[in-house]
């Protein structure tokens, strides 16, 4: 029953997070872990879609989300946020991208800023799960096919016929 830390105020994340962090096996301890994640976050902001092991992607995702949400919250005139961006983005031109490109892009989002997919694992190969981590609104073609508009899917056929029948009924009523 510890008290919540009130010195910082953060926005709610739109993704599910784990109760505890993952250690991400590293000989340099927590500092090395953060360095690993910094590399991942930098790559994510740079390339907007990366493929990597699931554990590392899932850990880095939270940091990327918070970095963007803080940038949106405080803007580029806030010293602490700028320092944070400077720490997390190893390539300095990406700090500019974060504040000038990503912040306008995500300002009015009501969903998470990143997406994660399970990716196939080569067999035989390394056992770890693979995943794809991407920023929403990236310029690449979508990874999943949107079938919701496909008229030939069974439920769409059924709904289509139901609608037609309803219209016929209405027309018949009007004709009377």
């Amino acid at each position, binding site marked *: 029953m510890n008290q919540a830390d009130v010195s910082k105020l953060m926005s709610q994340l739109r993704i599910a997070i784990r109760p505890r962090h993952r250690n991400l096996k590293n000989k340099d301890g927590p500092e090395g872990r953060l360095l690993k994640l910094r590399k991942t976050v930098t790559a994510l902001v740079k390339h907007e879609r990366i493929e990597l092991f699931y554990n590392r992607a899932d850990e880095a995702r939270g940091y990327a989300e918070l970095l963007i949400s803080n940038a949106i919250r405080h803007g580029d005139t806030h010293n602490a946020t700028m320092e944070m961006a400077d720490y997390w983005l190893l390539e300095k031109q990406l700090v500019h991208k974060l504040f000038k490109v990503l912040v306008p892009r995500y300002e009015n989002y009501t969903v998470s800023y990143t997406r994660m997919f399970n990716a*196939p694992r080569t067999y035989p190969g390394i056992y770890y799960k693979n995943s794809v981590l991407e920023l929403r609104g990236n310029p690449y073609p979508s990874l999943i096919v949107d079938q919701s508009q496909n008229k030939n899917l069974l439920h769409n056929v059924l709904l289509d*016929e139901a609608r037609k029948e309803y219209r016929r009924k209405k027309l018949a009523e009007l004709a009377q």
Partner: protein
Amino acid sequence: MKSVITITHPCEVFCSFTMSAATKLHKTSWCALRQLQQYRTKANFSASSSSIAKRNELFNQEQKRQRDAVGRIDKIEVRYLGLPEDVTLVMNANISTPYNCAQHLSEGHKRRSALALIDGSVPWDMHRPLQESCTLQLLHFQVSEPHVVNKAFWRTCSFMLGAALNRAFKPEANLQLHSFPGPNIKSGSFVHDIVLQTRNWQPTKEEMRTVSAEMVKLALEDHEIERLDVTQDIAQEIFKDSKYKSEQLPSIAQQTHGRVTLYRLGDHIDISRGPMVGATRFLGKCTISAAHKVADEGETDGFYRIQGVALPSGIQLNHVAFGVLEERSKKLNPARLPNEPFEEHQQLQLS
């Protein structure tokens, strides 16, 4: 609710305990279900259990005979087209099935594929042995042109409805499965026609829900759907105690050069031209919505048309939209009725 469990044990069938438990069940909460509960039973201790066992035995014998008749194993080349990449598989003629090909590809293919497409045009059951070298595509319900697999799914639903009805009624109801017309998705419902030894069955909501639950149970039990082509004689032998099936058989055999296609799900066997999807687990949301009395049959019996609507397991639909579909599926399906000329009806069934 302990009494529900006791029914499942076949040894206790004739114990008085079971009966008293069942009556207690009626008194407590499921009063509305009484009518169906009286008819309700497990197939393996119904009066017709011996005939079902006989059917299955004959089916197994014929299946085994056909497998043994393969003799020398020939190799065929199956060219698989699709994700992740096109490959050529060397399989055994008349033994290997599209399901075996999917097993070579990946767990996902195995789990997801509902129907195979041979040479780009011929729909082929997942568990039907391949006969010669061909190209193979594996279909599921989310492909961009799912007409074929949708049709197979609709037909499978009708077939499963027969099995579910068989399970839901007690032998006293004297249920006889008649037939089911060919799949027509646009009509909004799949259909199975049955004959019951009552002329004024007004099914309640709970009774229809029980049948729906049987469908869901079938889906959860994940039965493989087997296909077998047999000669007319064997089909007659299998269906000799089914009045309507044996009536239908000659005309079916006449159209298909003396061969009859049978499908089996668990211990339920029926005639259908196929194709059907590979297993019952592909059934997702399902509602058996209505039972219409269509005509009187013979002296005491009534001819009923049972209808329902279902979606494949991968497809999500919110309950409002599904409610619209359910409402629509309650209307009497316009598919051909058997009081119209019998041959035409059979043609429709075989389409």
